[in-house]
């Protein structure tokens, strides 16, 4: 890799953080029932990905997301992958993300995961591993996007000295995808649960940058199986695509959670009738279930007839007796994940458990083997970051974003999240982590 000169950027880090404050780059956290907004800690030393590594990742990510989209279509239609015994039906139908209401529904262009956030780590051996697929409402792209804008502002020479791929075009990727999906030339909206959602900055920033309208609960309504945006003085406008940042179960109180005030009553009928695109589709949770993750390389082979380019972290499913025996015997060196949890919650390291906790965990695995997966602990490559004036090393992951409209495209950047705790592997912002820009080198 070419020599990377970061001096200008590091010297300007206070200026970047000032700009972040000026633009209100924040995320919200609920603690003890109280909502607080805080600045997302930004480290100015970027993660740098060589062209060679990126070419590999890009091909692997495109392949993986294509297969996941085919899997979702198959699950809600023909179910061939179950009939052919590649994925056991228990893993599909017992998944909390499986939505029977989506059976037979055909989204525009057969696309389910329009925006996929694939979490990867780079091992110390230089190999990349997929840790998790996020196909419901993956968030975080706005942060490196605005960070790049601000870094270029405060240290332009850093970018003239280094050949870094543009990343401010994420909004263009989104806009094109929304245009591809939009039904009958309707409005394109981003539906936010509201001001007190932890990712509200992102919702509003992406609306600004894509030119979509930010819609709040109550702004949209359904009439004759079509969705409309309600204007002043009884004006209304047809909506063709909804990039929704509201969870499946709250999207339509007439179909799902009846008490939801966040959704649009009747939207499922409009969606089933093909009158509106939902981005991402409802029911995607069945494919990003931690249990289904195990089967993704098999999906790639099954649907595309290709070997999976990207590797999963070595994973065991206690559902299979052989795997269960291994997990129970090696619990202290594995990481255990509760398949029903997200956001870094429900992740437990065997090495941190005492004998009593290990025994309890073994019991839980025996009682509910489908609820757990176990993985070998990957020794991630540490990334450098600045703590005061000192350079320290911390664990970090990479969320890559793959956008699918008429084509599947990988955004040449990503959200690099790092742990601020030297002993922790948990990088989630909700648990105190920070973020970096992700540079993909052009040459």
């Amino acid at each position, binding site marked *: 890799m070419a020599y990377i000169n970061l001096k200008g950027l590091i010297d300007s880090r206070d200026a970047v953080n000032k700009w972040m404050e000026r633009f209100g780059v924040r995320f919200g956290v609920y603690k003890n029932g109280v909502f607080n907004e805080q600045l997302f800690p930004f480290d100015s030393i970027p993660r740098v990905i060589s062209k060679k590594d990126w070419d590999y990742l890009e091909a692997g990510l495109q392949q993986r997301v294509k297969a996941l989209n085919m899997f979702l279509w198959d699950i809600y239609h023909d179910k061939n992958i179950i009939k052919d015994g590649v994925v056991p039906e228990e893993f599909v139908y017992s998944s909390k993300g499986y939505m029977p209401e989506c059976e037979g529904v055909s989204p525009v262009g057969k696309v389910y995961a329009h925006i996929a956030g694939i979490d990867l780590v780079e091992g110390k051996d230089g190999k990349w591993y997929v840790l998790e697929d996020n196909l419901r409402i993956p968030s975080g792209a706005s942060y490196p996007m605005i960070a790049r804008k601000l870094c270029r502002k405060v240290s332009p020479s850093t970018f003239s000295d280094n050949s870094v791929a543009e990343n401010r075009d994420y909004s263009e990727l989104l806009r094109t995808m929304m245009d591809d999906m939009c039904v009958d030339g309707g409005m394109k909206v981003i539906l936010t649960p509201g001001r007190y959602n932890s990712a509200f900055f992102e919702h*509003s920033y992406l609306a600004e940058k894509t030119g979509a309208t930010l819609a709040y609960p109550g702004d949209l309504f359904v009439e004759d199986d079509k969705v409309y945006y309600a204007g*002043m*003085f009884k004006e209304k406008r047809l909506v063709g695509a909804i990039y929704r940042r509201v969870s499946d179960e709250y999207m339509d109180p007439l179909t799902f959670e009846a008490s939801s005030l966040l959704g649009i009553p009747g939207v499922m009928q409009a969606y089933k009738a093909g009158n509106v695109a939902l981005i991402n589709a409802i029911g995607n949770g069945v494919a990003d279930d931690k249990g289904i993750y195990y089967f993704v390389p098999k999906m790639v082979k099954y649907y595309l007839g290709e070997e999976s380019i990207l590797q999963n972290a070595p994973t065991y499913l206690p559902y299979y007796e052989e795997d269960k025996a291994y997990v129970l015997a090696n619990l202290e060196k594995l990481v255990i994940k509760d398949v029903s949890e997200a956001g870094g919650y429900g992740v437990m390291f065997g090495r941190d458990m005492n004998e009593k906790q290990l025994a309890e965990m073994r019991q839980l695995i025996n009682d509910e083997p489908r609820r757990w997966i176990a993985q070998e602990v990957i020794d991630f490559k540490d990334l450098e970051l600045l703590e005061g004036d000192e350079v320290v090393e911390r664990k970090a992951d990479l969320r890559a974003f793959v956008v699918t409209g008429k084509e599947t495209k990988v955004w040449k950047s990503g959200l690099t999240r790092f742990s601020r705790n030297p002993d922790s592997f948990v990088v989630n912002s909700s648990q105190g982590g920070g973020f970096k820009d992700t540079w993909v080198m052009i040459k």
Partner: protein
Amino acid sequence: MIISANKANRLYWLGRYVERVYMTLHLLRRVYDKMIDGQPEDYESFWQKLDMTDSYASTSEFTLGMMYDDKNPSSLMSSLNSAMDNAIMLREDIKSETMSYIEMSIALMKKYRSEAMSNITNLQSVTDWMLAFGGSAAQRIDDPKVLSLIAIGQKTEKIDIMLRFCYCYDRIAAQYYILRNWAKEWPELLDENIDAQIVEMLKPENYKDADEEFRWRLCKFINTVVRA
């Protein structure tokens, strides 16, 4: 562009709060100037004009309270926070750059509050940023309806404060005709009956400068003429 009722309401109130910050600072500077010569009645009449139910015990408490007191809805800090509460939900319409002038003002006020800074003249940056907010909005907002709602909010607030602080007839009448001009973009926005009442009251022969009840009634009409 289509604008929802909630969005229209937020745009209107964003304009009102930004103008409230600007006007309050302007008026506070005048009071501050008089207080230099020890005229405490000025600050008492100030809070009475704003319908504040609680007074402050001293000039220094009054100054700090009007600057930083979160519990005082007329303070600069409260008005800035309220402006931000609206702006943050309008980012895609007003743009991040426009919003940033409110963010910067809040950050500066928080810094000064932590230092108990009481010299109101140091808040010139906030005045500048409120003016920059208007300039940025005019430069960056493409939708004339969005721009007009903010401007109408600003004019409504300005007239309200001018009436409370007994500004002269010419200035008040001029501001209302500017408001009406902005509403041409969206004629349904003004309640035509209330508008007709205001126009009648603003005729030179009908205007009663010294009549407090008249000004109070006009203020009430001004505050209800916009249907947002």
